Every structure is written in C-alpha cells, then in structure tokens.
C-alpha cells in the first residue's frame, strides 16, 4: 500500500486538471464583480451574492446589525411583499437562505437550471429596492432575539465561546459576536438597518457568483439586464488590515452551567491577507494538518488515544480572514483529568513540533487529504460557489484555490517547525478554562 503522494508522482498534474472546471469573471461598469463557474454534471444552479460587509464592520454600539439586515433582505422590497421573495423561490422549486459572518454577508438561491433568469431578477430587486418598514423591522428583531436565545443564551458552551472570543481577539471587530451582544441587539433601530444597507449594499462592494449548468454566453446578458442599472454609489472605505503585534498572554476562567469542563486556546497569527510572507499561511496550514488533520494526526493519536487525557480535541488554523488569522484548539478532558493537565499535554504537543520538524510521512498525509478534499469539493455546486465567493470578498484571486496544493507542496518540515516557534507562543495566546458552576 503506497501513500497517495508518493504513488502520485507525475499523475498529480493530470488528476488536478481533470477536476478543474471553467471559471469566468467580468465586471459591470457599476463595479459589480461577477464570477461564473461552469459545471454541467447536473441541470442545477447556485446563485449567490456576497457583500464585503460583516460583523467586523459594525461599530461597537451596533453589534448584530449586519445579521439583522440579512434578515431584513427577506422582508420586502418595492415589488415584493414581506416573505414573498422566499415564497417565489419555493414556488419555482428553489431554496434560498443567507448567512452572515465576521467578514461578509452572503445570500444564495439554488434551483433547477432553467430558473436562472428568475434568480437574477429576484436578487437584483432587493439590491435596488429593499424596503425596511418600521413595524416589520421590530417583529423581525424579535425573531433574531429568539435566534440568539436558541444559539447562544441557552447553550453554555456557546456563551463561553462568545466571552472567550472577546478576549482572544482584542481590539478587533472579531471580538464581538456576529449575532450581537444581547442588550445592544434588543435596541437596534430600523434607521440603522437602512443606513447599513445604503452604505454597504452597493455594486462595488459585492460579488455575484453563479455556479452550475450555465455558460458565460447565457449569463452575461442576463446579469447586464438586471444588474447594470444599479447605481454605482460609493464603495465604502475599509481599512487595510495588517499583522498585529502580539497582544500579550491572556487567561480566563469561566464558571457556567456546563456539566463537563472545556478548554479553549487561541493564538493570534497571520492570515493569508495579513501575512508578510505568504509562506506563513501555508506553513500554518500544514501545522494545523499535522496536529489535527484527521484521526491519524497527532492530537487524536497522542491525546485522545495515547495518553487518554482528552475525550475530544480539535485544532485548526483559520487563515482565510480579512483580519488576522487564528490558530484554535478546543478540548474536553476525560473525567479525573484537570484542565491544567490537559493544557500542559496540548502545549507539549506544540512544543514537540517546535523542537523537531514533522516527518515527511505526516506532511504527505496532510497533502493527500487536501488534494483529495479539493476533488471531493467539486461534488457540490454550492461548495464551488462558496469557494469562489469566499476568496472574492477577501480580495483574493479565485485561481488561488487551484494553486493551493502546489503551494502546500513547497512547504518544508522545517518551515512547519518554524511556524510553531514563531506563532504558537505565549504572548499571542488566550486560554480559557470553562468550569461547571460550583466546582473548583
């Protein structure tokens, strides 16, 4: 049995090429970026619109606003009553929804392929003509408060995570929860939502992504028909993010109504957009894979299976962010294991890499996983649209996804070791011990 990459040799190129699908891009005069991915396997399409407007763009007094506006995008426009957007989508066999992240807000519709013109017309309507009615805003705010209760307030681990993030990412827009702090959320006003829409929902701040059984010849006239008359408006200024100096070591003890303790660790590290050298991004990606790229990776092998200190542990690098990246580890101790002991064991795993570079076999396994997952990802049209949109709102070239495995190939074990030494250090770390109320 040969490991994938060793056996792969020359066929690597052909394998990747086989999976590559045509991608087209153009820009309308008003600044709207358009990306088209052709995938003719099945007669389906995904239409997404992405805005460079997420919760990190919120001022400290208006947390939750980006997400509330996302809800309001379904509550009526000049030519659609509240709820009619989704009812129309459903009537034509589609499904639709949206999500708000720290970095962006994105909307999607999925249909059988002949529904493309409708999808574009509906999307253009709410970009041009959204109406935010006071009464409807207040009722929807109640819905969002319920969403917050459900997702956060009634989940002690989610509450713990929210408090942890506030400390783990100090002085950035990532320090407040996407759904908003409860008290501020309750006080948001319709005027704030209108102003958010006017400020951020302009063509120059958006990317339209169309993936599936379409051709550029078919898409372009339709996009021009429905989107070209959107006024250009002013693209909101956004500060360039840079690599922050180390914030200093932070430790937090949270006593909450949990039944099982938990450990959270997070390091402030570069992202692909803030790294001085892109090598850092790829080295940190490999480091994440070596520590937790599967059940054969070190965290699972050594801490869950070997020493049996953790009931579960996860580690990962998130380097695709508008601001700085995070390297995060979460773990649940086994009974009779203290959080201190668990933290020590995790840090020892990091220290091992800082002392000694990972083996070539480990590096190959990480790359095999990445390479295979790129092919598996092509199975989903929505997944492809997500990939294109994510890169676009970060201001990155979509072709980067195709160079990803080549760039990982170039990382040496010594660079992974150096990444652990440089970035997973105390002055960049935040650690939280989440403890059941009433316990020591």
């Amino acid at each position, binding site marked *: 049995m040969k490991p994938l990459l060793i056996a792969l040799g020359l066929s690597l190129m052909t394998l990747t090429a086989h999976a590559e699908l045509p991608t087209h891009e153009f820009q309308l005069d008003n600044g709207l970026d358009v990306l088209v991915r052709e995938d003719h396997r099945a007669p389906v399409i995904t239409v997404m619109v992405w805005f460079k407007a997420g919760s990190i763009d919120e001022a400290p007094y208006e947390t939750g606003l980006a997400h509330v506006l996302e809800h309001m995008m379904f509550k009526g426009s000049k030519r659609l009553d509240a709820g009619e957007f989704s009812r129309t989508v*459903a009537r034509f066999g589609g499904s639709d929804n949206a999500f708000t992240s720290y970095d962006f807000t994105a909307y999607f519709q999925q249909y*059988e392929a*002949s529904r493309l013109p409708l999808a574009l017309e509906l999307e253009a309507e709410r970009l041009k003509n959204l109406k935010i009615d006071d009464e409807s805003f207040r009722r929807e705010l109640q819905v969002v408060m319920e969403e917050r209760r459900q997702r956060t307030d009634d989940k002690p*681990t989610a509450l713990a995570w929210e408090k942890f993030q506030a400390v783990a990412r100090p002085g950035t827009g990532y320090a407040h929860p996407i759904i908003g702090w409860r008290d501020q959320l309750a006080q948001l006003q319709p005027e704030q939502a209108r102003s958010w829409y006017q400020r951020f929902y302009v063509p120059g701040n958006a990317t339209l992504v169309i993936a599936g059984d379409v051709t550029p010849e078919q898409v372009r006239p339709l996009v021009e028909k429905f989107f070209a008359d959107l006024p250009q408006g002013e693209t909101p200024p956004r500060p360039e993010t840079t690599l922050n100096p180390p914030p200093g070591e932070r430790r937090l003890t949270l006593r909450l109504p949990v039944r099982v303790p938990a450990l959270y660790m997070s390091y402030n590290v570069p992202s692909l957009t803030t790294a001085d050298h892109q090598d850092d991004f790829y080295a940190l990606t490999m480091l994440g894979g070596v520590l937790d790229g599967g059940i054969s990776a070190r965290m699972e092998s050594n801490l869950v299976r070997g020493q049996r200190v953790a009931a579960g542990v996860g580690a990962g690098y998130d380097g695709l962010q508008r601001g700085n990246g995070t390297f995060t580890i979460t773990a649940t101790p086994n009974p009779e294991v203290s959080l201190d002991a668990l933290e020590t064991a995790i840090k020892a795993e990091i220290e091992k890499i800082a002392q000694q570079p990972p083996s070539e076999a480990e590096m190959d396994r990480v790359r095999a996983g990445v390479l295979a997952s790129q092919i598996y990802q092509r199975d989903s049209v929505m997944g492809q649209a997500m990939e294109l949109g994510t890169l676009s709102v970060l201001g990155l070239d979509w072709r980067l996804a195709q160079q990803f495995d080549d760039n990982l190939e170039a990382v040496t074990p010594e660079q992974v070791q150096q990444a652990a030494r440089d970035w997973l250090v105390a002055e960049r770390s935040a650690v939280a011990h989440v403890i059941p109320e009433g316990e020591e």
Partner: protein
Amino acid sequence: MDPMKLFPAVLAALLLAGCAGFPTTADQVREAKPAAPELAIQSWRTEQGAKVLFVPSPALPMLDVRLVMDAGSARDGDLPGVAALTSALLGEGAEGLSVDEIARGFEDRGASFSTGSYQDMGVISLRTLSRPRWREDAVDLLARVIGTPTFPQGALERIRTSALQGLKMEKQVPGPQVNKTFQSTLFGDHPYGHPQSGTLDSLPAIERADLVAFHQRYYAAGNAVIALVGDVSREQAEAIAEKLSGALPRGDAAPELARAERLKERVTEHVDFPSNQTHILIGNQATWRGNPDHVPLYVGNYILGGGGFASLLTQEVREQKGFVYGISSYFKPMAAGGPFILQLQTANENADQALALTMGIVRDFIKNGPTEAQLEAAKANILGSRALETADNSDIIGQLGAIGFYDLPLDYLQRFNRRVEAVTVEDIRAAFQCALDADRLAIVSIGPRAPEADGQ
C-alpha cells in the same frame, strides 16, 4: 373626444402593466419545464445475499461506497447503546491492524471512512479517489475493517468514556433532553423508544462480547445493502460489492419489528430546566415506510411545516408574530413506524401563546386540509426541485441507501413524482385525518414552566 371611448384603451394598458407584473421572468421560466433527471439505478445481489445499488458517475475521479445494515438502535434489545457503540468501534482495530494503521491507511490515500448509527440503520461510508491504485487499497482496508473488527477492550473503555461525557454535555442544553423525552413518550417500550446513544446507566453495562455478538448478527451480509456511486464500471462495482459482502459475517436479514402503536389520548410531559426559551415538541406515531398515504402526507406536511419560509407554521408563528426563530414539522417514516414531529422554540413568556397558535393551525389543517392554491404551490416546489435532489454524488448515495434499505422500487423517485402530480386536497385531508388526531397528540416541553396547552 368622447371620454368613454378612451377608457377601454387606458384600461387595457393598465391591465397589461398589471399582467406583466413582477417578476417579469416568471412567465418565461414557468414555461420551461424543469428537468428532473431520472436515476438509472442498477441493482443485483452478491453471492452472500447483500443487495447492491449502483449509479455510475464518471464526471469526477471519486467513488462513494455506503453499506447500510439493519443494525440501528431498534436492534439494541435490552442494551440501549450497543448498536451505537458497535458502530463507533468499527475502525478501532481489525485482525492484524491497529487503530493507527487503519487511520493512516485511509488518510494516507486521501480516503475518508466513517460510521453512523440511527434508529433503523447502521451506516458505513467510504469516500475515495477512484483511480485503481488508491481505490483498491481503500476498499481492501474497508473490507478488513468491517469484516474482522477486533473491538479492543481499551478502545471500548475509551469510547464509552467519551460517550458518557457526551451524554453529560447533553444535560447542559434543552434540545437533546426534550427530544429524548418526546421519543420515550411516543414509543415507550417499543424499540424506537430508547435513546440511540444509550444512557448513563446502560453504557457501563455493555461488554466487549456484546459488541462482537451484535456485529456477528446484524452486520451480516444478508442484512446489508451496498450502495455505490462514482467513477467505476459495472464490473468494478460488482467486484467491490463481492469483496465487501464476502468480508462480512454470513447471516440473514434481521426479522421485522412489530409496528409501533399510536397514543390513544393527549399526553403532556414537561421537563423543568432553567432555559431562556421553552422548547415544545408536538406529535404522535403516524406513519411507516410503505404507508400508501406517504405522498399525501409528505405534500401536506410541506404546506403545514416542512416548506421552510413557505410553510404555514413559519408564516404564522414566525413571520406574523415573531414568536420563534425556528418552527417546522415532518413525518419520519421508518421500518416499524414513524412519528409526526412538530418542533418550536420560543421565549418563555410567549410559550402559551405560541403553543395555542400552533395547535390551532394544526387542528385547522387536519380538519380542513390545504387550499387549492397552497397545494398548487407545493406541487410546483416539489416537482420543480427534483433536479437538486440527485445533483451530487452525495445526494445520490443517500437516495440509493434509502431505496435499498426500505426495499423501494428502483424507479421510486419517478413514481413519487407521478403521485405528487396527482395528489388532491381531498387526498391530503383524508390522509392527515387518518394519520393524526389533534386531540391525541403528545405535547412535550422543556423550560422553567410547562406551557399551557389550548385547553381542548
């Protein structure tokens, strides 16, 4: 000029504008009949008796393999959690292979292996690149893992500990607690009544010999369905299926389970919990796989609570009142029964009103059924979305697993479409009245205070 003469022309122009309406593309799109690709499913049996379903899909160099066994928690017997533990320990050791060797064996080749345990099914999944040099290794390894599991004592202790930690964590949050109470309220001592993941009491009693016996009996070739989707030929698919079923223990299909019975009266249960929201589940045993009313119930439920933003429950309880973020309903047809489940979560102070409103909608729907307009919109959605349900290999493998496991005809999806086209308001009303009685629904809740039902 005679103003009267002008009038019809103006009127006509106004009407025209009205007809053009919005969206302007609606008419054009309505004329395009949505494609509904038919899955050409190939099926055969292996020498050892496993049923195989196969759809070739050469577009991507990958292969999905799924084994679906009649080995879910319904087969736990008096050991709740034994099915789940057996499933979780596959991959923890096989003859001549340690857990580390198995994990590396898959991950070195970019293959992913996973198992899952449900009420009816034990599911084993492999996704691999389809080129022979990786696929063959991955399939060989899969055969050893499922055929000769060693269930090491140490792995049992470790996974049991982790499962017990998981059960404790479920007590931190309202959802899992109310779901379990609902399940036991509806199904009691029936094999669907106990929690799939076992209990704090049952897990410690399970021994290695129980896992070995469970595997021997329920992971038998005659109790398995093997589904394959991907870039392999029929001959290759046959060889893979033979290899996998040949590796499994010999044995027959598990015996049928007795059909679950309905609650005969309104039952209310409440769990006290200091949450901000009250979670409410409403339902009863209502259907089963093979129910001739399946399509009218499915279409009716789409209108009532299955259709997301388009559903009655979402429109009335969320959009109109703002009581909830999530509210939905579904029928869950399984081999030996299947509940109707309606779930909502609402701020404690709104729980009474939200429950009363919801019960009113349900009562009215059972009594009157949908309107013609609602039915037309539902049909348009369901028939118009068929292409989305078989677009990915992931979608297709899921369909094959269900079709094979529940012995549905290979053209099940096409038959389903034809029945949807034909279903009437009367069919839906009759099916709902047969399946559900608004006065005999269980209402199960969790929160600081039991919500007041509608007093009916």
